[in-house]
């Protein structure tokens, strides 16, 4: 889901640590090193950064990722998903062929697994990958980042690639981390916070 869509979902992060100076060069290097690379025939998926304005081109020029005071770019995840029914059909054809050739009535478990793997590889080389683009807005001054997706898999990919690219950890902001890290509580209050237990609102 894109930042400019009419409806968006946002997962929020605190960026732990500071970028090395010069900041824009550090970011550009991180983006270039881990930019999206087209999926090859044998792979199931490919993940990398793309530019916000041109998500289907994997190049970052100059400071094209800077909008106002924000760093704005996208995470692209391309995946090849073989429809289950297509896989089933081709496995059945291949199984029948192998049975006819061998003159046997059954195949072993290992043979069935090998067929499935072979068929998956062949199909994977034939089908196009589906691209998914997830935008993000990074406010470096406030060490905050918005990722425009709530899906678990996309968020996990983001956290991994972000650390790999910029050597900074993304801390997800949820009730405890917001209270502990951003609510301005005193050490005493944070100590109380860690010992809280659920309230009973029943009569």
């Amino acid at each position, binding site marked *: 889901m894109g930042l*400019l869509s009419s409806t968006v979902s*946002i997962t929020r992060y605190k960026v732990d640590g500071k970028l090395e100076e010069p900041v824009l060069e550090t970011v550009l290097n991180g983006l270039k090193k881990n930019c999206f690379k087209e999926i090859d025939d044998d792979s199931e998926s490919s993940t990398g950064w793309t530019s916000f304005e041109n998500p289907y081109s994997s190049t970052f020029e100059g400071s094209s990722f800077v909008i106002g005071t924000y760093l704005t770019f996208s995470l692209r995840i391309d995946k090849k998903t073989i429809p289950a029914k297509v896989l089933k059909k081709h496995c059945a054809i291949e199984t029948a062929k192998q049975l006819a050739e061998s003159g046997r009535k059954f195949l072993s478990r290992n043979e069935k697994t090998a067929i499935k793997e072979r068929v998956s590889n062949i199909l994977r080389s034939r089908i196009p990958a589906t691209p998914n683009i997830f935008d993000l807005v990074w406010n470096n001054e406030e060490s905050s980042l918005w990722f425009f997706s709530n899906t678990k898999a996309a968020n996990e990919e983001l956290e991994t690639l972000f650390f790999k690219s910029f050597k900074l950890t993304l801390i997800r902001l*949820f*009730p405890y*981390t917001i209270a*502990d890290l*951003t609510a301005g509580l005193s050490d005493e209050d944070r100590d109380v916070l860690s010992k809280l237990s659920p309230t009973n*609102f029943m009569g």
Partner: protein
Amino acid sequence: MLDVSISYNRYKFLGYEFLTWLWFIIEKDQNKLQNSNREPVSLGIGSRMVLENASNDNVESITIKGDDADLKEAILSLRKGAVVTELNLSLKEGDQEWRFNIKGESFNIAGLKPPETGPVENQEEIEGAVLEKVFLYDKVIRLMDSLYKDFIKLRVTNKWNTEIVPLIKAWINP
């Protein structure tokens, strides 16, 4: 700081209690609805509410949908020990409206629909459009942070148990 996945699960009740408290102040104490500049805001329950009751052995989930849904069922669920786990909220400012869902356990914002902005017709307009959208999303995020901050500052004091919880109980059990 605690391990993130441990603290996520151990303290998700804070998010549920926040949403329950938020519904309470929307209904009963509107002047507590203030943004970070301490200006009053117009925030209302939108078209969806999800509650969860884990007080018995089984976890029961109750979803109430509809623009002018009767929330009596939801109050009844609170009376039985449920908490609010997800809310659809409507924020109004003049003739502008933001609608969004917020999840108690993750604080994820979903289905955020900000006020309408003009279409982007060419590449040159993208920068302005991004800044406008970010500004609009920021209103919701800053408001929720500010309200959560008000809640958590109450929650770590005795006032929570001595003053706020009795008021919420009285609201649930009139």
